[in-house]
């Protein structure tokens, strides 16, 4: 009962002091707001890059062209041989007629040339379309497929794919690193801001001690205050990401520059992001307050 009263009073007092020291609170709040906005941007960016690179990896295919005069038994055998290679995920056989059909449907020029081709006089080759489970091994898999007998040329957008993969990896790591560093910086920034605000309230702490407040009695209201500052500081970033992202998504129709680069659907992505921002604001506000108040407690 007593504890509940102490806590409810602490909450009331922290609200009061947030507003009574409003100019100082504003400093902490804007500090939290600015950093959370940067964190929000990093989250949106890194998740989208992550999502995008996963999609690209899914789409990257090795195409193995088979010799023109190959027998159908040999085609079956090759399938089994490819399957024994590590990191091969799926294999799909596409014969020359399918390929001709695909090409004809993509352009009228092809259609005019190819429409009378039969299986026998087609210069195209039968192919296996192979997908790998890990894009980093695509070159190795391609090489092994190439060494199989009756397999001619193997194509997978060599170089480009690997480069893209490594660029994504870098972007992802940079984003994760940036978010991590930002969280640390925010905690410091906030604890410094709150330290300044608490310095101005050193007297208050001194008086609290004088009338018999224990360290806990002093800490609790200040930590609630940090919590409140954190939540208030998260309001703007949450609104910006929510409305900003939805607007962005609708404006670009869910894709960036080409259908190839798809954005993450706003729901439930924005809810998660908002949740993370609020929790982060709360934690960072509380830690900042705690670090700052500790300085003035005699322990």
């Amino acid at each position: 009962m007593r504890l509940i009263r102490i806590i409810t009073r602490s909450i009331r007092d922290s609200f009061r002091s947030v507003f009574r020291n409003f100019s100082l609170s504003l400093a902490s709040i804007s500090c939290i707001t600015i950093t959370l906005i940067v964190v929000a941007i990093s989250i949106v960016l890194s998740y989208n890059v992550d999502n995008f690179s996963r999609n690209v990896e899914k789409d990257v295919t090795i195409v193995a062209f088979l010799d023109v005069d190959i027998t159908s038994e040999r085609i079956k055998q090759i399938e089994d041989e490819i399957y024994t290679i590590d990191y091969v995920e799926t294999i799909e056989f596409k014969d020359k007629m399918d390929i001709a059909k695909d090409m004809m449907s993509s352009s009228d020029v092809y259609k005019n040339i190819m429409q009378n081709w039969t299986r026998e006089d087609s210069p195209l080759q039968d192919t296996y379309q192979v997908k790998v489970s890990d894009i980093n091994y695509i070159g190795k898999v391609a090489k092994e497929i190439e060494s199989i007998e009756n397999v001619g040329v193997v194509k997978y957008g060599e170089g480009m794919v690997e480069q893209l993969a490594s660029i994504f990896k870098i972007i992802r790591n940079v984003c994760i690193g940036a978010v991590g560093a930002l969280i640390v910086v925010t905690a410091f920034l906030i604890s410094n801001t709150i330290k300044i605000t608490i310095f101005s309230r050193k007297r208050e702490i001194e008086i609290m001690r004088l009338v018999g407040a224990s360290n806990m009695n002093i800490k609790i209201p200040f930590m609630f205050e940090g919590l409140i500052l954190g939540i208030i500081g998260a309001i703007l970033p949450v609104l910006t990401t929510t409305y900003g992202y939805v607007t962005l998504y609708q404006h670009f129709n869910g894709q960036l520059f080409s259908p190839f680069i798809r954005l993450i659907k706003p729901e439930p992505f924005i809810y998660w992001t908002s949740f993370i921002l609020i929790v982060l604001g709360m934690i960072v506000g509380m830690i900042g307050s705690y670090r700052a108040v500790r300085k003035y407690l005699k322990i």
Partner: protein
Amino acid sequence: MDLIRMSNVKKTYKTGVTAIYDLNLSIEKGDFVFIIGSTGCGKSTLIKMLYREEKPNSGKIIIGGMNVAKLRNRKVYKLRRKIGVVFQDFKLLNRATVYENVAFALEIFGTPKSEIHAKVIKVLDLVGLKGKIKNYPNQLSGGEQQRVAIARAIVNGPKLLICDEPTGNLDEKTSMEIMEVLEAINRMGTTIIMVTHDRKIVELMQKRVILLDAGRVLKDYAKGTYKNATN
């Protein structure tokens, strides 16, 4: 019975200054004691050790059975809840009303609201400030602010009230009004220790007077003997 017993207390500050040398002192329950002496003789240091703002280097300080000299920082609040302290500069929360300033000292322990209200009104009445509970400190005179500080110090019903030059910032008339309040509190059974530079007050009140000089007790005048002694 003694409320306070100090034996062989010595205090040397980190700077190397020794403010109190081997002090022995007992103060009875219900007493009113003045501590006087020239500037820098160690008056504030002596009472700071009583409310455990400073720790003696050696010696014992027993207040109501508690050895204050050994009290750890994190346990200081236990002592502070049993005593009241009043300063020359009032130490009020400027952003809080008179009522809130006094209630503050009770809220910290989670006292129920109804109980807080009754107690706060009672002490504010006692110090003669019942009509100004909604004022902020900067809307009060110095004397009134000191009354708020006294009300806050006694709202818990402490056995001991420590005052460091409570009238130092006040004019003569206001000082005497404050002394009347303290006298009334003392009559209700609270032991009072008051540091002061004001000879007039000390002569008028006729209480026990302890004269310090360079960290030692130079003279200890029993109740009612101070005026005679100086003549």
